[in-house]
């Protein structure tokens, strides 16, 4: 057979394993300085959070340890940042730096786990609704509408009044509120993708519904899902801090950025660092995730901005 129609570059030499869409995206994102820096910040934060016990041991300050001699002034106020306490101390004379690190463990865990669960549920529900259409779609779409229009803080308060504030309840509430946003996007994409000829080709070969959904449609959905998930992580972190601030999320003494800030509220006039350091850490984290998400989006498909600019919802207690 002739090889005339093979592009010159593809004949002979060349890598045998193809450059897939993911490799191309990776090449694009590597040239995006903002995204790379944001990615590095995210990685660094995760590393610091994981290493929190090591760092705590190295400073010699446990997360709940109260330093009544060095950590509290004569007036009983927190101590400003110094050589021993890098971020200063809190109202009980605990090392704020160590507590912020430990808070990162909780906040990042909540953000990642809740978003991961939401992504899983959202993808499955969105796929089912979009693929089967008809009554299944009507039912699931209504469910998404209800979830999205339910005043979420009221719901959070209700759940917490039943279950009591805890890590699990916090993750559950956030996941419950995030899946619908993902499901909506996935449903819309599935509706479009299931009409593609390659789906028809799969059916003509005798592929079952599950195979079509997960082998043929899902890989084409991954790009928007990854972007949306990256953007939902900071939203979840913000959500966690809001819940904790209201006393509905992570309960002290376990530190989370939300309850650190909540404690700081009464002290901001006398101890700027109490409010400042947790707030700055939180802002840097969420900003890095958001910038990274934007970068991934641009790298995967520059035209995808349209999809998200219209559908993205930020949830926060206004």
């Amino acid at each position, binding site marked *: 057979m002739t*090889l005339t129609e093979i592009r010159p570059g593809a004949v002979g030499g060349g890598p045998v394993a*193809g450059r897939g*869409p993911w490799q191309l995206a990776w090449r694009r994102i590597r040239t995006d300085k903002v995204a790379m820096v944001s990615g590095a910040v995210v990685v660094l934060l995760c590393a610091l959070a994981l290493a929190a016990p090591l760092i705590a041991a190295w400073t010699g300050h446990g997360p709940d340890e109260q330093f009544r001699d060095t950590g509290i002034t004569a007036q009983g106020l927190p101590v400003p940042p110094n050589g021993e306490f890098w971020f200063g101390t809190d109202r009980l004379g605990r090392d704020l730096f160590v507590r912020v690190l430990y808070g990162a463990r909780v906040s990042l865990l909540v953000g990642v786990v809740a978003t991961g669960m939401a992504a899983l549920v959202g993808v499955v529900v969105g796929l089912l609704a979009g693929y089967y259409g008809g009554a299944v779609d009507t039912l699931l779409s209504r469910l998404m509408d209800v979830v999205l229009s339910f005043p979420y803080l009221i719901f959070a308060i209700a759940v917490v009044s039943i279950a009591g504030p805890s890590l699990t309840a916090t993750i559950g509430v956030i996941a419950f509120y995030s899946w619908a946003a993902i499901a909506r996007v996935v449903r819309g994409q599935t509706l479009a993708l299931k009409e593609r000829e*390659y789906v*028809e*080709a799969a059916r*003509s*070969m*005798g592929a079952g519904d599950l195979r079509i959904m997960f082998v043929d449609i899902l890989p084409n959905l991954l790009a928007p899902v990854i972007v949306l998930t990256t953007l939902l992580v900071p939203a979840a972190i913000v959500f966690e801090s809001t819940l904790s601030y209201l006393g509905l999320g992570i309960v002290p003494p376990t530190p989370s950025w939300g309850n650190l800030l909540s404690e700081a509220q009464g002290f901001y006039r006398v101890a700027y660092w109490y409010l400042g350091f947790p707030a700055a850490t939180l802002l840097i984290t969420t900003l890095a995730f958001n910038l990274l998400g934007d970068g991934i989006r641009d790298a995967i498909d520059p035209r995808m901005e349209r999809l998200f600019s219209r559908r993205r919802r930020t949830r926060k207690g206004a």
Partner: protein
Amino acid sequence: MLLEVSNVVKHYPITAGALFKHVVGQVRAVDGVSFDLAAGETLGLVGETGCGKSTLARCLAGLHPVTSGSVRFDGTDITNLPRRRMRPYRRDIQVIFQDPYGSLNPRRRVGSIIADPLVIHRVMSGEQLRRTVQELMERVGLNPEHYNRFPAEFSGGQRQRIGVARALALRPRLIICDEPVSALDVSIQAQILNLLKDLQVEYGLTYLFIAHDLSVVRHISDRIAVMYLGKIVELGAADPVYDRPRHPYTNALLSATAVADPDEAQRRRRVVLTGDVPSPIDPPSGCRFHPRCPRAQDICSTEEPLLEGTEGTEGTAACHFPMEVVV
């Protein structure tokens, strides 16, 4: 007969109503089509966009349920079989799709796309599967080394070869080719057509070959069926239909195709059809072609002509006033 299609009808309901949906009309995409296909034969199915030929192909491939009529494959009725019972027949009936871009999943590697039918029907796996796929790639003229590439790295013609390899994987008996070359450059069309022809000889394949262009179909088909608005208007051996069309619509279609031979072109009068193709929701009465037909008379708008042969000819045409046979 390998495939017997009798009186197949496919209507799509049109619904309206905000609260309670009700059917307000039907799109008569395919409206009573019958033909037979012998093993090893190629039937060319020709018609303009929207005449129902692709819908028919999807009905025959079991992708859409038919409204009425029956499809028999190798003597067994396979009309609207439930998915589970249709499965064994899917091994024997494969489809090559029109769009070499749309019919290959952009996020999957070519090797896994071609292996799909073998995996779905659990024919083989592992090393044997990889070898078979590479043999298939080689057979259709692709470099087997490119097993791990993505569809986007191939040209249109190469992608259609991937589609052919995939359709061939299960060694089917019938391949429904839904306009397999209309999205390709003319120079590449011939290559794919030749490939299909070679494969037919090698594997004893039967083709239902759909196209909107008579000239493409001629070289590969034993017989040709011409469709207009959901019905077959002419059916006969390829050369007679091409050289001596009986139905005015076939004649018009033929005159619209470019002819390479200047003498031939001289002899042909170009027939220009007036008006648009009527809507399949509300097709014309009598002969569906009558509003656009240069030979139409009163009877054409009241009585529907049957698909039948006239004396001294081999093919059949659904026309009250078929074209005279010019000898």
